[in-house]
């Protein structure tokens, strides 16, 4: 489905057309949900956070100054609400086992991944991302899945732009190592 620019829907909503908000929700719900899900790792909690964030955005729409993109503002609220929930629940992020890997180039990892079915590839990547700290998982998701700029990611997460770049670099390295580990285990299971 083709969507209009966010300002088109915002103007309609502020003009009294509440139903136009449904289009804004449909446009951004997937990414909003994924930002929460990547951190909380629970579908129910992620849905609740994402829905509450959309409600908060709706009632604050008059205050939106349009200095940034609507999606950046929305995702910032989702991210902050998610982090608040994590701190309340004091969720632990799986720690990354710092084993010594036989280093493979990303191209080799990609070839190994191609041997897997599509579902397995999806599972491995999501498992690897889920092991990252919450900030890193958010940065990776926004950068690769939403094609957000460094500046937008900085606004959403509250990190400096240089910090975002450092996290991107380190997260990709960790993801690669994590995938290698998983692929090795897969090989062992097959043998």
């Amino acid at each position, binding site marked *: 489905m083709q969507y209009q620019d966010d300002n088109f829907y915002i103007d309609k909503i502020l003009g009294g057309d509440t139903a136009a908000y449904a289009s804004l929700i449909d446009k951004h719900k997937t990414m909003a949900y*994924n930002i929460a899900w990547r951190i909380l790792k629970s*579908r129910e909690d992620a849905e609740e956070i994402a829905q509450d964030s959309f409600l908060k955005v*709706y*009632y604050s729409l008059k205050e939106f100054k349009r200095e940034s993109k609507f999606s950046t503002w929305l995702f910032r609220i989702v991210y902050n609400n998610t982090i608040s929930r994590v701190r309340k629940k004091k969720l632990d992020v799986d720690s990354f086992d710092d084993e010594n890997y036989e280093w493979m180039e990303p191209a080799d990892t990609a070839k190994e991944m191609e041997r897997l079915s599509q579902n397995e*590839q999806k599972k491995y990547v*999501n498992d690897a991302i889920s092991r990252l700290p919450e900030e890193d998982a958010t940065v990776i998701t926004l950068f690769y899945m939403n*094609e957000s700029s460094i*500046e937008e990611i900085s606004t959403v997460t509250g990190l400096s732009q240089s910090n975002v770049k450092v996290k991107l670099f380190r997260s990709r390295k960790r993801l690669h190592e994590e995938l290698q580990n998983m692929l090795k285990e897969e090989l062992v299971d097959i043998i």
Partner: protein
Amino acid sequence: MKHEQFDSDDVMKNIIRKGGLEQPSFNFTNTVMSKIHSPQSAAAFIYQPVISRKAWITIGALFVALCGFVFLIPPGGNSAVDLSKYILPAQQTINNALSKIAGSISFINSFSTLVIIAAAGWLLFAADKYLRRMVFTS
């Protein structure tokens, strides 16, 4: 804004994108829209200022009443009020009123009292603005 490639690595990009995005539930949008139309939801999410408009009007009215009360009381403490006797130059009148407010605290002069009252009012206003900004950026 154009997507930045600060470190070109299309291979990792393609690997990560294989993860795809999880989809929220089928009735996600309907659930949000139904909550928008519920009064409970409005009460939960509509911003309520820390210091309401009524409170500001009350504070302002009390301040004006206090100044007026001090202005109208004759120095001798007599109950009769004769405004015509107290039509003094504006500066002298204000100084007299503020001196009465300061009372027995002799080291505080009229100007300091005025500054303290103005500062207190400004602090209340600034605190409301700051808390309002915190709510909307959170």
